[in-house]
Every structure is written in structure tokens, then in C-alpha cells.
């Protein structure tokens, strides 16, 4: 068991990180992005630049969390992230997942919660980076497919929201549908977090009893050809069911939590 001071320190680091994240979003959105608009280039060029900057900001954020002792992490297979037309999917145990994946994927697009487009700290960032809102469904699917056809790398969390601890995986079919429509390649990332940090419904200061360790494992590409031979509604259902089973087999049915929390 770590010392009480270490525990309090981790609460302080977590609080600082939340503050930094919000401040970072404001500074990028209010100062940096408007300044970048002065740089030359067409819309696609600007968006790529913005996404590259968001990626580097997230990586810095990860280094701060790691260096400050808030979390530790390891990534296996990151060289296979960021290919053109690649759809990257991942399970979603914690609030930090999107930051970790974006931080280590070259300039990706990302499907994020519609709420981030209304949050004053995040909305300018997600807008400038051309991220895609997960609502309404038809627009999400069409915009995601368009991004993949334009050879962007796109990150999606098929659960749509963080995993509820102890509940089996429930994947939304949207990701499977987007994959079948337009992905050149579909790559799964398995995220493990031990002990779990910031799951759905917890306050920020509820840090776990030990420093959480993240493992991001980039899996083998998933073959889509056999599904593409089926009528699309059937294909997306079958692929989605397969993905759910696949993730459950990899991570256990309780959604990427390797242990019970708080123990």
C-alpha cells in the first residue's frame, strides 16, 4: 500500500490535469487556432495542421500525467496506427482513452460525444480539428465514411460512452456500419486499465487506491471482405456481434477491467 502522501499527491495531479486540460482547450481554441488561420493553405491542409497540433497537445498531456505520477502506460503496436483510410476502434473503460489513442495516432479524425461540441472548454478544439459528433446517427455515419474515403485515419469508440463497470460490452452498430461502408482497414485497439480510473459516474477526485496503469494493445486488422458480400444491414449486425464477442474474449466480459475497483 502506498503512503497517504502519495495518494493525496495523485489527487493533486489529477486535479491539475483536469485544470490543464480545460485551460489547454481554451488556449488552443481562443488563441492558437485563430492565429493558425493566418497561415496559408486550403481547408484540408489547415485541418491536418490542427489535428497534428491536437495530437501533440494530447501527447504532452499524457507525458504530464505520466511524469507527475497520475498514471503510467504502455503501447504495443503503435506503428500500425494512422494509416490512410484506417478505422481504429477501441473499448472505452475510462475518460483518458481518447487522449491516449489520439496522442499516439498521427493526426487522426475522431468521432466524439455531441456534448463536446457544446462544452466551452472543448468545443473550439473539436470544431477546428474537424472531429465528428456522434449525433444524429445518419450524419455521423455519412461524415465518418467521407473522412475515411478522403484517406483520413478515424478513431471511434463503438460503445459510444464509457463502459459501465461490470456490465458486458454493448457496441453500437454505427462503427460496424462505418467500417463496412468506407474503411480501407479496420484495426482494433484493446485498452486495459488497472485499477480503473475515472469510469462513468465517478467524480474526478476519486482516484484509485494505486497508480493506474494503462495498456494499449493494437490488434491485427479485421477482414471485412466476407461481410461486404452480405446486404449492409445484415453485414453490420454480424460484424458488430463479432466485434463484441472478440472484445469480450480479449478483455473479459466486464469491459476491460482486470480487477475489481477499490481493492
Amino acid at each position: 500500500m502506498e503512503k497517504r502522501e502519495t495518494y493525496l499527491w495523485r489527487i493533486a495531479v489529477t486535479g491539475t490535469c483536469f485544470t490543464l486540460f480545460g485551460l489547454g482547450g481554451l488556449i488552443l481554441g481562443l488563441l492558437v487556432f485563430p492565429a493558425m488561420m493566418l497561415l496559408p493553405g486550403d481547408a484540408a491542409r489547415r485541418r491536418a495542421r490542427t489535428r497534428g497540433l491536437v495530437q501533440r497537445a494530447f501527447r504532452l498531456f499524457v507525458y504530464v500525467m505520466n511524469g507527475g505520477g497520475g498514471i503510467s502506460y504502455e503501447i504495443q503496436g503503435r506503428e500500425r496506427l494512422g494509416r490512410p483510410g484506417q478505422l481504429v476502434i477501441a473499448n472505452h473503460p475510462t475518460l483518458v482513452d481518447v487522449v491516449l489513442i489520439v496522442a499516439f495516432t498521427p493526426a487522426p479524425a475522431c468521432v466524439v460525444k455531441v456534448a463536446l461540441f457544446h462544452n466551452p472548454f472543448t468545443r473550439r478544439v473539436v470544431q477546428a480539428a474537424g472531429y465528428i459528433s456522434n449525433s444524429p446517427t445518419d450524419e455521423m455515419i455519412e461524415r465518418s465514411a467521407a473522412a475515411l474515403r478522403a484517406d483520413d485515419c478515424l478513431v471511434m469508440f463503438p460503445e459510444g460512452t464509457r463502459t459501465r463497470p461490470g456490465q458486458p460490452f454493448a457496441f453500437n452498430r454505427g462503427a460496424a456500419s462505418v467500417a463496412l461502408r468506407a474503411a480501407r482497414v479496420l484495426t482494433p485497439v484493446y485498452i486495459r486499465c488497472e485499477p480503473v480510473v475515472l469510469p462513468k459516474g465517478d467524480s474526478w477526485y476519486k482516484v484509485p487506491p494505486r497508480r493506474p496503469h494503462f495498456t494499449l494493445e493494437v490488434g491485427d486488422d479485421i477482414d471485412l471482405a466476407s461481410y461486404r458480400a452480405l446486404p449492409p444491414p445484415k453485414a453490420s449486425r454480424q460484424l458488430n456481434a463479432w466485434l463484441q464477442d472478440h472484445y469480450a474474449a480479449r478483455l473479459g466480459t466486464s469491459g476491460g477491467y482486470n480487477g475489481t475497483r477499490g481493492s
Partner: protein
Amino acid sequence: MQTKDEIFEQIKAALTELFELDLGRITPAARLNEDLEIDSIDAVDLLDRLRRQTGAKISAEDFRSVRTVGDMVEAVHKIVRA
């Protein structure tokens, strides 16, 4: 220029082919979601299919208020007539 009957037949063909529905269930009054179990993701697949079949430029926006098969016939008819 297609009549509403022709459009209805095309929609029927699309629904049976994509969703393997019995023809008898596809009536103008049938509700897509409740009666035919077609959700918002299926609707995007259906739209794609209708676009290819009718050659009409149907956007998701045109279908936002569609609830029944009959509504869909009306929506497509409005677009091909325009």
C-alpha cells in the same frame, strides 16, 4: 418521372432485399421503427439503396420526419418531382 405506385414498389423491393421482410408486412401504414424494426443505422443503408435505385438525390434531412412506409413514398415522390 415515377408515380407513387412505382415508388412504393421500389421501396418494397429495397425493404425485402435489405431486411428480408415479408411482403405482407410492408404496407403504407407500417411504421419503420416499431413495425419493421428498422433503426437509424438501417435507415442510412436504405437511403443509399433508394438513391441508387431511383437516381434521386435524397438526403438524410429529407427523411428526418419519415415515420411510415407511406411517409417515405411521399418524401421520395416529392424529390423526384422537384
